[in-house]
């Protein structure tokens, strides 16, 4: 797609928002998050997701706990902190405003 160079930064910027949404719905480990995004415009990879989650953890928006798994080593399950929930709520509200602006502008 010839527009992709313009759209890629938008997707990149929104990835953090989507990860917060996924983790906010229910605690998830990385393969869950990847699978949830896989069929969307935001399909991503571990190489991107782990650094992003570590940044979100450092910003105190998510935290993780170890959970044993039936197969293989324990897994890190991520969930939102209270600050993360607040951030997600404000991002959601902001997104709705932007979206309304985009839909409405230039109509008349």
């Amino acid at each position: 797609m010839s527009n992709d160079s313009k759209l890629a930064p938008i997707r990149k910027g929104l990835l953090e928002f989507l990860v917060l949404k996924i983790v906010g719905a229910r605690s998830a480990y990385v393969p869950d998050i990847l699978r949830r995004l896989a069929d969307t415009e935001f399909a991503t990879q571990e190489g991107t997701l782990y650094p992003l989650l570590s940044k979100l953890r450092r910003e105190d928006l998510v935290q993780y706990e170890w959970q044993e798994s039936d197969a293989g080593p324990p897994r890190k399950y991520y969930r939102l902190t209270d600050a993360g929930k607040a951030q997600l709520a404000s991002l959601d509200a902001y997104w709705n405003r932007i979206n309304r602006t985009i839909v409405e502008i230039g109509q008349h």
Partner: protein
Amino acid sequence: MQRLYITATLNRSTLQFEEAAYARLESYLAEASRTLAGNPDQAEILSDLEQAIADQCSKRLQPGSSVVTLAELQPALEEIGPVQIPGSAIGSDREFRFSGRTLQQVSEGAMISGVCMGFARYFGLDVTLLRIMAIVLLIASGGTMVLVYVILMLLLPYAPAERGGAPVRKIPTWSRRFVEYVRAKFSAVTS
């Protein structure tokens, strides 16, 4: 003759690698480590990635086989993808903002008034380099450079305040107040 395999412990999993696969693994991890240099969570992210590689390789191993070859490792690494620093989109936004080609003083992170910061940004150079050049010129000019600095300080506009930028130190705050005072006086005299 028996072939030699390399045993690698990736976070919590231990796997055997064929030589070529091991070399590829090492170069991926070295590259990841370079990309994450300076990141306070570097070690933790690398462990997470090692675990992801181990999981991906185990998943791909043929039944009965216990040695990872490039045939398993290469698709595993492709699926994991290169390490990317979050927020580099924001980084390019900064570059975009700074490409505005006007010479301005930058108060954030400045030592005196932000003239060197402004020149560094204008030319895309390291501010330390600019400061060293300024000091060399100061010595070479026998002090005339001070006058040049003060003139630039009085003439150059200030770049708009940045959110999330470096803090403004005390001296730049005072020098800015001084500059604004002089400019006010000057415009009062000329009008």
